[in-house]
């Protein structure tokens, strides 16, 4: 289990009176081993900051983020950034992009080949393996970014609105692929979304965030099991949970 305990984070800002902008205040979240939690909240509430705190790319002013086993978080995290285009390596092929984390971890050639092939098959990228990423569509690029973040089997996978720039049908197709991937691997996942359908479809639990400084206003369990298909989105049960989430969202936004 990974846990954020009473973390706060502020940034320097010329817009606020005291020169500091409090983004996260007294925020706690624990994510169980093999759980997929979605964070759903208004734009600019601090969701990305929460992910960065979990990733360790920034540090909290107060509070801590830790594995309950006490292990170091370093090299245990896969992170799919929102602007994935800026993180892929356009001078490398799809295969080479996905192999990158294994290369820098000094994995052996055989291991790199096997793991890269496995994850490319999993995400349906095998037929594009020799293409350069700039030759791919937005959806496929996003899959490369996700495949690259999972090829080394991180203990924690962080995804920051990865499908936000894709059109409706492609993002829905990716929901099912991603959910399938997660069901196969059971990697502990925190998925940030501003799309309520996406948050409910993908999450085992939806954490609804308040506006800044952010905190969790509601945690709503999504009891649909591991395997999910898109037909679920039009079911009454889905609609009921979706309504709960939206109600909590409104409360959080007006707090």
């Amino acid at each position, binding site marked *: 289990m990974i846990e954020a305990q009473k973390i706060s984070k502020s940034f320097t800002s010329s817009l606020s009176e005291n020169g500091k902008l409090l983004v996260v205040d007294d925020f706690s979240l624990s994510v169980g081993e093999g759980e997929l939690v979605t964070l759903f909240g208004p734009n600019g509430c601090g969701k990305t900051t929460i992910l960065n705190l979990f990733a360790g790319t920034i540090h909290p002013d107060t509070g801590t983020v830790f594995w309950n086993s006490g292990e170091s978080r370093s090299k245990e995290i896969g992170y799919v*950034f929102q602007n994935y285009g800026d*993180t892929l390596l356009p001078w490398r092929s799809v295969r080479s992009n996905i192999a990158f984390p294994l290369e820098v971890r000094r994995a052996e050639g055989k291991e790199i080949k096997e793991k890269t092939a496995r994850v490319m098959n999993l995400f349906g990228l095998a037929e594009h393996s020799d293409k350069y990423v*700039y030759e791919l569509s937005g959806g496929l690029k996003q899959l490369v970014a996700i495949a690259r973040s999972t090829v080394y089997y991180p203990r924690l996978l962080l995804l920051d609105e990865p499908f936000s720039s894709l059109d409706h049908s492609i993002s829905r197709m990716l929901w099912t692929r991603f959910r399938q991937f997660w069901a196969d691997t059971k990697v502990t996942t925190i998925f940030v979304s501003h799309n309520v359908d996406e948050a409910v479809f993908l999450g085992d639990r939806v954490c609804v965030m308040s506006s800044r400084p952010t905190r969790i206003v509601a945690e709503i369990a999504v009891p649909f099991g591991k395997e999910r298909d898109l037909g679920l989105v039009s079911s009454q049960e889905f609609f009921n949970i979706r309504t709960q989430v939206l109600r909590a969202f409104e409360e959080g936004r007006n707090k």
Partner: protein
Amino acid sequence: MKHIIFLILPLFLLAIWVLLTSLGMVDAIFLPTPWSVIGSIARGLIAGSLAKDTFITVGRSLAGFFVAAAIGVPLGLLVGRIKPLAYATQPTIDFFRSIPATALFPLFLFFFGIGDKAKIAIVVYACSLIVLVNTAYGAMQVKRMRILCAQVMGAGRFDIFWKIIIPESSPGIFAGLRIALSLSFVLIVVTEMFIGTTVGLGYQIMNAQMVYRTSDMYASIVLAGIVGYLANRSLLSVEARVLHWVGH
């Protein structure tokens, strides 16, 4: 059409040259006919003297160019990625790159004598600054997000440098190399004209000019242009292969 369009401008210029000389609008002492220049080139190449001059000039230029690249690229990467170093060196670099290298002939003659070393050193001086500045600019453009993402995936400083910073700086590196390659040919020809030597296209240009062998002079000038063009084409073909991803 795409494959022949590049011929239009040279053919147009050649036509003007033919027109000017055949109509007697310019005295042959200033501009001989293209045919006499082509004849001079053919005679010089067959006799072997012009081929040797060309070979020597190309050798000197490339020696200077490669040394300049070997100095300019690594220093440019350091200056581009280490902000305090950029602040500390920028005024000095800007000062020296504003000085025409040829104005420093006496200094180079003092340190390197009148042989090839001085000529190559002038090329190294001027071209390394150009490569350095362009490389530094390329290195400054490396996306912070790309480095951050690589760090999250477990990349250390060495990997980030070799696998992220160098490839992403390569458009700037190649921009510098392209300018430096052309400049290296220009500078070598100029130094051959003024610093003691008895071989090289620059020497032949100066020599022919002194004795009014204008066709021979233009033969060396045209050859200098042709080898510079071919060198640039070679670099461009390497660049097209390395930088296939730029602009997407």
